[in-house]
């Protein structure tokens, strides 16, 4: 591919120069020229008021469509940790069902580790087939055995779409599968769609710290792989009477060159820190003024059966460990309820929580950007608001 300027249309206005992240465009003799620094990011394409910038795709070999058509079916990698299947698997089965119906194909799940009973559960959540391997090698998480066995299965059965959760596990080992199969992988998608005729998966995800969204295709290779953010897709229907096939897989010859020596569960005074799975997150920022502030939030979290998050400012101050950080350089969360206390709402924070169902912002500054992301905004001092909220919630609970 290359980007070309239509010299007859170019007015030399320089709009493209302003948007080019690589300083690759110069104006020569009144028209723009794209030089050698161009990284093909296409930022300039939509900037041109005259439509003078064109994509040329001449140098990419076309793939015979029969090759692509031999790949059929939608797969969901159901991750487990310590024998418990992660809820994102059920969400992916819900989404996978839609994609499979659009293409008129089967929906399969892949489960490594956990029990055969868990495999049967995946059928009830919507899988037509479950490829199951209960080998001991999957007890602690190691990238290579997961990557190797999944790659083997994909090469053998040729699914056209493979989805996994955008979790610590999924985002760590799926890239190995993609690299082994030389296929495309899109990270941390927040929405998926499929072109019914071509089967191209339209994978949409945030980039540039959430400043922009990008829709990504992998039109020339199969399978199309994506990791999908937990909690953004709706789970499918759970049907006790559903039937499906469980196919036992052998892990012969699968090796791990990493060893998990110990697994440490993070809980703090009874509050779980798995932010990605939490339905309720109470987050605190610099406005909390110190460690004690977080004690108050933990109390609220316990009351609401939730967990505690934090802005980077609060983490940097050392008030709470990094594993609680929400945002671009922390975790991306999508709870039913997110309460932001004393957080200004910098874009790097917003990107990590703005897909939450309901957002409550508590901030004393009515101009704080967090309010523009909030479902409910409460302008006030959190040292008054939070204790009062706790008190009122207690009263209601007591009264029930």
């Amino acid at each position, binding site marked *: 591919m290359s980007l070309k300027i239509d010299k007859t249309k170019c007015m030399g206005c320089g709009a493209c120069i*302003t948007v080019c992240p690589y300083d690759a465009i110069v104006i020569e003799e009144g028209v723009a020229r794209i030089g050698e620094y161009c990284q093909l990011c296409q*930022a300039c394409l939509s900037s041109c008021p005259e439509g003078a910038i064109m994509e040329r795709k001449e140098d990419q070999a076309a793939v015979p469509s029969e090759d692509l058509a031999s790949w059929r079916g939608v797969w969901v990698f159901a991750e487990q940790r310590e024998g418990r299947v992660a809820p994102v698997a059920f969400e992916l089965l819900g989404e996978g069902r839609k994609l499979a119906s659009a293409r008129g194909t089967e929906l399969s799940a892949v489960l490594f580790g956990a029990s055969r009973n868990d495999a049967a559960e995946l059928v009830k959540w919507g899988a037509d087939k479950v490829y199951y391997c209960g080998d001991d090698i999957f007890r602690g998480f190691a*990238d290579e055995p997961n990557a190797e066995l999944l790659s083997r299965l994909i090469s053998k059965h040729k699914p056209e779409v493979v989805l996994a959760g955008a979790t610590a596990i999924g985002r760590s080992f*799926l*890239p190995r599968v993609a690299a082994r199969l030389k296929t495309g992988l899109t990270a941390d998608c927040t929405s998926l769609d499929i072109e019914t005729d071509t089967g191209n998966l339209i994978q949409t995800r945030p980039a540039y710290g959430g400043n922009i969204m990008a829709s990504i295709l992998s039109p020339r290779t199969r399978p199309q792989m994506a990791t999908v953010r937990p909690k953004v897709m709706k789970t499918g229907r759970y049907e006790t009477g559903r039937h499906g096939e469980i196919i036992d897989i052998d892990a012969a010859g699968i090796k791990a060159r990493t060893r998990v020596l110990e697994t440490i569960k993070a809980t703090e005074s009874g509050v779980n820190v798995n932010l990605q799975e939490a339905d309720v997150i109470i987050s605190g920022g610099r406005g909390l003024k110190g460690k004690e502030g977080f004690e108050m939030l933990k109390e609220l979290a316990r009351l609401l059966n939730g967990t505690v998050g934090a802005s980077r400012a609060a983490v940097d101050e050392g008030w709470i460990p990094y594993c609680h950080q929400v945002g671009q350089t922390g975790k991306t969360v999508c709870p039913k309820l997110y309460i932001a206390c004393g957080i200004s709402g910098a874009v*790097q924070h917003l990107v990590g929580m703005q897909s939450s169902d309901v957002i409550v912002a508590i901030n004393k500054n009515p101009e704080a950007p967090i309010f523009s992301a909030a479902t409910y905004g409460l302008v006030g001092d959190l040292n008054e608001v939070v204790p009062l909220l706790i008190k009122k919630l207690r009263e209601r609970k007591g009264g029930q």
Partner: protein
Amino acid sequence: MKIAVCIKQVPDTAEVRINRETGTLIREGVPSIINPYDTHAIEAALSIREMLGGTVCAVTMGPPQAEASLREAISLGVDEAFLVTGREFAGADTLATACALSGVIKKIGADLIICGKQAIDGDTAQVGPEVAEFLDIPHVSYVKKIIEVNAESIKVERMMDDGSDIVEAGLPALITVVRELNTPRLPSLKGKMNAKKAEIKKMGAAELGLPPEVVGFNGSPTQVKKIFTPGPRGGRKQLEGPLEEQIDALINELLEKKCL
């Protein structure tokens, strides 16, 4: 011990603004920086070198301007710097990037490769594990603590969603690191002097023995089809009145929405 650090030059996304009318990124005046995670990777490499001796090489794939990031790495104490650059690398996705980076790492050889967890422009966190796969070596992601490292193996603590794991791997291996790992040092005066005169070794696909169809746009299975700005969220409600009433109203709304 020979350590390679993969660093990427990125726009400081904290400074990136959006032109709401055109839906494009306003890059004007936005400084380029070393990807923040990669500064932790550099720090980790330097402190291992201080313990065990050896050399630290910084590797980047990018346009010619990326040389500035490599000089910055040298000012921090990195010994050697390699820039993979050329037209043929333009338009690379994570797979094509990993292919190019693994090509140069094969050439220079390394016992330990350290990457940042993710780059803040693409936020994919895929390049590290993909490089490991291309090199056929084990990897450990999201390393928040290096517990032990010697000539044969490395023992680390890796962040997981529900806690952490202590993981051991034989070398050569690749790790990707998170911010909690360390506090990056500042450049020294001597480092800055070194950076000015240091030679940055440049390589193209031909020198790396990579055919043009595996790098850059041609070697990239994923393609960006559309870029757009996220729409504003609807349903916003500013609560009003005395605090107590606001809180009552909030609780009622949340109960109605089944959030409580």
